[in-house]
């Protein structure tokens, strides 16, 4: 008996050894394949339905809009040139003749008209969540509203012929060209009409970008290969882009170390926090943490006592040590924020933040304490009630606890912290059922409006109940003028009202996008908003 | 006496058990013989060592914790205590068979009765399945089970208590062993069934010529079935004799006490029963002298110091008691 069992054990060990020998090729460059982690399965690859960064990262390789982003500039894409009317409300795009779909069909202006109208269709199946990105177009919003009586022919986009696309806007929108490089503005092939499920499988997928979809193993991996029909195919040096979908940051870290992926971290991956801190401290050459145009802030319920009092809000804002927060808690090389529009957003000639003063308030614990007392008195309260800072799962907990601690030390108040499940958290925040909550906002396009117009009275993303007529007026001015300098001035003033005068929200820091990239990977672009463009990348031998 | 028909000869067997609280002496110096065709009863109360003796004959005592400290067991001319385990496997079920007290737990509940019989036949007599099945059914018929071919495919829980014991007998006798050891075979059965089983065993013994060792604490059974009787107390044989000798002329005080304590049908209802006072000794620390003396009406000084040898009263009758020693005779 003993002998038999020992033999069995030995057999098992031998089998495991053999299995392990046939596994693990480790995988690495040498071939022109770029490997990256998406973390999750893209909910969709249909430009009309896209809503999240995982989908958009894959789409960057698959599609191209009228314009493209190259090294931070908006350059020609599917449209080789365009004419803009004097009032800035009419654009005529000239589609290049050699633009082709991945199946060889030419890309025409009709494709764009069809696609945008499709996205705006109120009974699209399912309706497009990001349709509002197209609302700049004349009658777009009305058409998207069912029972509004506006017919599709009235929407301001029309193909004059195969190569000319005429677009009419509601208002002169100086950043419209930048918008046309955005995912929602990508074209789709006409054949999608016949097959609504075209975007769910590689076999039926047609796209017009530098790559085409070779395979989509749902929930597991996506492979892109260069499209022979792309007009700039000579610029494309990669032979394959391989996306994996690894949920666990530790697993991602392991895969990066073994070379199974070439890129780890944002925009779609995650570096475990403690490792990130170590990499930063060691000045690991494979790590970069470029600033991205996103802001991390706390929303304060302006409709609830005592947060309705501006002095109370200012006191809270001024008694946080942002430097300590960034260095000791978040540890990603972020920048403390004393305004709302982050660096990276265009101003008139330079960066918005370079032209507009970003120090709208100062940290001052003593002054804060004074203001708090005054504010409470104005509200007829003698002491600050115990309130709650809420947030969803993640690093936010440590941030909140650090801040609660600072408030306790500097203002002598007691603050509770509470993790709330994601959707419940969103619901509470939108319905103003909270005291203070964590929030973050990233740019959709390269203009200050992407950060400021959300605070209009009654705005869908105005989660604080901010109501300011002067602010609204300035925003309207900035959205209806075409002169950039006027616009920037108006936006600067609006930001001042929001933060300096009213402290409607409490800015904390501007994001960075920490990531690790293997030294042999070259040519990857990260744009101002932290999105990755791998289309022109290559592997150095 | 070395007869050709002595089937089993146990000499000065000593078996002990190693436990946490020390060594427990289970069997202290047991000697007896068994002839061919004979039915021998080993009588005693719980803890007397009778089951251990019987199981030792088949080397069924697990060791550890049990160990044979001395003595010999000769069976059919073979030295049982020197056999290897493999050799014992060849003997068990083939030359020796055993049936146990509780047939419900002693039969495998998830195996058909038939299979439990054929298993023995296939192993020891190299029969194939078909032959074994036929023989098994024959055995079932032999032990008095009706519709034996149906019974063959049934499970123990489908049998009544008495039927199960019959099945056990069928299993034990399947290979026609020389010796059958029956360890309290009727203790767990109704009185009426008891009689039937004993009847069966007697019948089979006559027909097959099997030697039987019947272990029991019930003297009533002994009277029915056995030729000779051995009485054990505290690991030793205290008296042996023929049935007549033991019942009509018991010598050892313990035997006398046993017989006296038997309730009788012709006793008046309200007459009290006569038990033996006291309890058996602790076998972890057995007494030096006679183990029965503190319960014995006739205890003498020497009883506490030295235990007597077996004193013969006739060719077949002997007892271990100073009362009968020539120097100590009081009568």
């Amino acid at each position: 008996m003993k002998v038999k069992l020992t033999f069995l054990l030995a057999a098992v060990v031998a089998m495991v050894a053999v299995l392990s020998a046939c596994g693990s090729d480790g995988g690495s460059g040498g071939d022109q394949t770029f490997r990256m982690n998406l973390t999750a399965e893209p909910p969709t690859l249909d430009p009309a339905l896209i809503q999240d960064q995982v989908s958009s990262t894959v789409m960057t390789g698959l599609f191209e809009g009228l314009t493209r982003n190259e090294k931070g500039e908006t350059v020609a894409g599917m449209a080789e040139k365009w004419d803009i009317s004097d009032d800035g409300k009419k654009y005529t795009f000239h589609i290049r003749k050699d633009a082709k779909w991945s199946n060889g069909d030419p890309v025409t202006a009709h494709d764009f008209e069809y696609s945008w109208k499709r996205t705006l269709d109120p009974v699209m199946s399912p309706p497009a969540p990001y349709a509002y990105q197209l609302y700049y177009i004349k009658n777009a919003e009305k058409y998207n509203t069912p029972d509004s009586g506006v017919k599709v022919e009235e929407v301001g986009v029309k193909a004059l012929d195969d190569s000319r696309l005429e677009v009419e806007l509601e208002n002169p929108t100086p950043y419209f060209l930048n918008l046309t490089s955005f995912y929602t503005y990508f074209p789709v092939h006409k054949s999608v009409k016949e097959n609504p499920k075209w975007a769910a499988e590689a076999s039926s997928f047609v796209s017009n970008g530098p790559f085409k979809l070779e395979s989509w193993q749902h929930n597991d991996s996506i492979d892109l290969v260069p499209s022979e029909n792309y007009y700039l195919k000579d610029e494309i040096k990669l032979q394959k882009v391989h996306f994996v979908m690894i949920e666990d940051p530790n697993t991602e870290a392991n895969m990066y170390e073994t070379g199974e992926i070439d890129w780890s971290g944002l925009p779609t991956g995650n570096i475990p926090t403690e490792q990130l801190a170590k990499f930063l401290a060691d000045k690991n050459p494979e790590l970069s943490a470029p600033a991205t145009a996103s802001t991390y802030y706390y929303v304060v319920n302006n409709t609830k006592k005592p947060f309705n009092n501006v002095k109370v809000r200012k006191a809270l804002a001024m008694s946080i040590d942002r430097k300590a927060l960034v260095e000791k808690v978040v540890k990603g090389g972020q920048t403390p924020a004393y305004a709302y529009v982050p660096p990276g957003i265009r101003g008139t000639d330079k960066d918005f933040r370079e032209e507009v003063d970003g120090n709208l308030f100062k940290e001052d614990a003593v002054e804060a304490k004074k203001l708090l007392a005054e504010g409470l008195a104005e509200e007829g309260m003698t002491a600050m009630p115990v309130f709650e800072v809420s947030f969803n799962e993640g690093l936010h907990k440590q941030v909140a606890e650090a801040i609660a601690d600072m408030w306790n030390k500097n203002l002598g108040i007691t603050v509770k912290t509470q993790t709330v499940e994601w959707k419940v958290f969103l619901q509470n925040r939108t319905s103003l059922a909270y005291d203070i909550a964590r929030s973050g906002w990233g740019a959709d396009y390269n203009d200050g409006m992407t950060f400021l117009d959300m605070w209009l009275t009654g705005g869908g993303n105005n989660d604080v109940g901010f109501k300011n007529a002067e602010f609204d007026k300035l925003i309207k001015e900035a959205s209806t003028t075409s002169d950039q300098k006027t616009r920037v001035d108006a936006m600067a003033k609006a930001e001042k009202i929001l933060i300096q005068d009213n402290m409607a929200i409490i800015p904390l820091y501007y994001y960075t996008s920490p990531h690790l990239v293997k030294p042999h990977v070259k040519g990857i672009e990260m744009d101002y908003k932290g999105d990755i463009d791998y289309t022109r990348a290559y592997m150095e031998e | 006496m070395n007869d050709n028909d002595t089937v089993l000869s146990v000499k000065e067997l000593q078996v002990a058990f190693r436990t946490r609280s020390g060594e427990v002496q289970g069997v202290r110096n047991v000697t007896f013989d068994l002839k061919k065709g004979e039915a021998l009863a080993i009588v005693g109360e719980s803890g007397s060592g009778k089951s251990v003796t019987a199981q030792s004959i088949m080397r069924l005592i697990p060791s550890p914790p049990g160990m044979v400290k001395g003595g010999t067991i000769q069976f059919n001319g073979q030295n049982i205590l020197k056999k290897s385990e493999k050799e014992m496997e060849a003997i068990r079920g083939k030359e020796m068979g055993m049936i146990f007290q509780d047939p419900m737990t002693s039969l495998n509940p998830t195996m058909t009765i038939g299979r439990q019989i054929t298993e023995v036949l296939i192993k020891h007599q190299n029969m194939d399945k078909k032959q074994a099945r036929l023989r098994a059914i024959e055995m079932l018929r032999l032990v008095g089970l009706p519709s034996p071919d149906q019974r063959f495919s049934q499970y123990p829980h489908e049998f009544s208590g008495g039927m199960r014991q019959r099945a056990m007998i069928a299993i034990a006798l399947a290979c026609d062993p020389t010796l059958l050891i029956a360890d309290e075979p009727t203790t767990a059965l109704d009185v009426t069934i008891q009689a039937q089983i004993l009847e069966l065993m007697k019948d089979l013994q006559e027909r097959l010529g099997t030697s039987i060792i019947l272990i029991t604490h019930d003297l009533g059974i002994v009277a029915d079935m056995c030729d000779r009787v051995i009485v054990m107390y505290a690991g030793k044989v205290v008296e042996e004799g023929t049935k007549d000798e033991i019942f009509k002329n018991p010598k050892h005080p313990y035997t006398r006490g046993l017989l006296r304590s038997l309730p009788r049908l012709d006793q008046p209802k309200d007459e009290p029963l006569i038990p033996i006072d006291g309890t058996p000794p602790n076998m972890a620390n057995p007494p030096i002298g006679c183990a029965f003396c503190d319960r014995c009406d006739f205890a003498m000084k020497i009883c506490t110091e030295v235990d007597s040898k077996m004193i013969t009263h006739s060719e077949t009758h002997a007892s271990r008691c100073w009362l009968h020693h020539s120097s100590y005779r009081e009568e």
Partner: protein
Amino acid sequence: MIRFLLRKTVNIVLSLFVLATATFFLMKAIPGDPFMQEKNVPDVVRQNLIKFYGFDKPMWEQYLVYLNNLIHLDLGMSMRQQYQSVSDIIARSFTYSLQLGLVAIVVSIIVGIAVGLIAALYHRKLIDKLAMLFATLGIAVPNFVLGTIIQYYFANKFRFFDVAGLNDPSDFVLPTIALSVLPIAFIARLTRSTMLEVLSADYIRTAKAKGIGSLTILIRHALRNGLLPVVSYVGPMTANIITGSVVVESIFGIAGLGKFFTMSVSNRDYTLIMGITLFYAAILMFARFLTDIAYALIDPRIKMMKKGGGGHAAG
């Protein structure tokens, strides 16, 4: 036999129905909906979406529509994964989970029984003590801790295996280990204690008295009786492995169903939540059902199938 099967099937269907109803209403009762994102969509768009999915209809009507679809075995389309039907998602993902799960179950049973058996046979010796120590650790150490550790050492540091995925046979080794350690520990302990009990049973003594060899006794007599509790553990074990797979699949990057189990709730992807819940419930019930059948097959004392004679007869 037919009656038994029929009864069980009806049972399962009824249970699933109750489960579907409970899940439906619980799900709708939680705050939040599939459409809320960090960046809120404007009301117009939100209304379009609500209308499209029929959420503007009264709750009972939504429930009836859902029930109707269910009866036609239509689980609907996922609300988050566009154009992917719930059945496709489940079928696809479950293929991975099933492979891993089956391997883990088989390994758990074989290794667990082997370890338990060895421990019982060498009772009180060093092997027994070591085996039980291992079993205790196996139950105590959470599988994500174990998974992370073996991944780090064997895939990263020593490069014996790939870190993630199920692309070739060697990829099964680490996740199977992480997934089966707990069931192995349970089965080992169960087997050991049952076997110890069985080995000291009277009928084992009888078998020995028949001259049957110890290996044969073990296999033919002891195992069958000793494995009954293990068989009845298969049900809970399947549950363990399914829930354990959520974490293990995440750590080893396996495209299984476990990920969707929790993610669908986070996303309030109602159709997917319902589909997965019912699917898992069906699997568990099926596992229990198999266990019942296996049990009845092994233990003839369970009156599920009436063979020939049957019953008792007078002495």
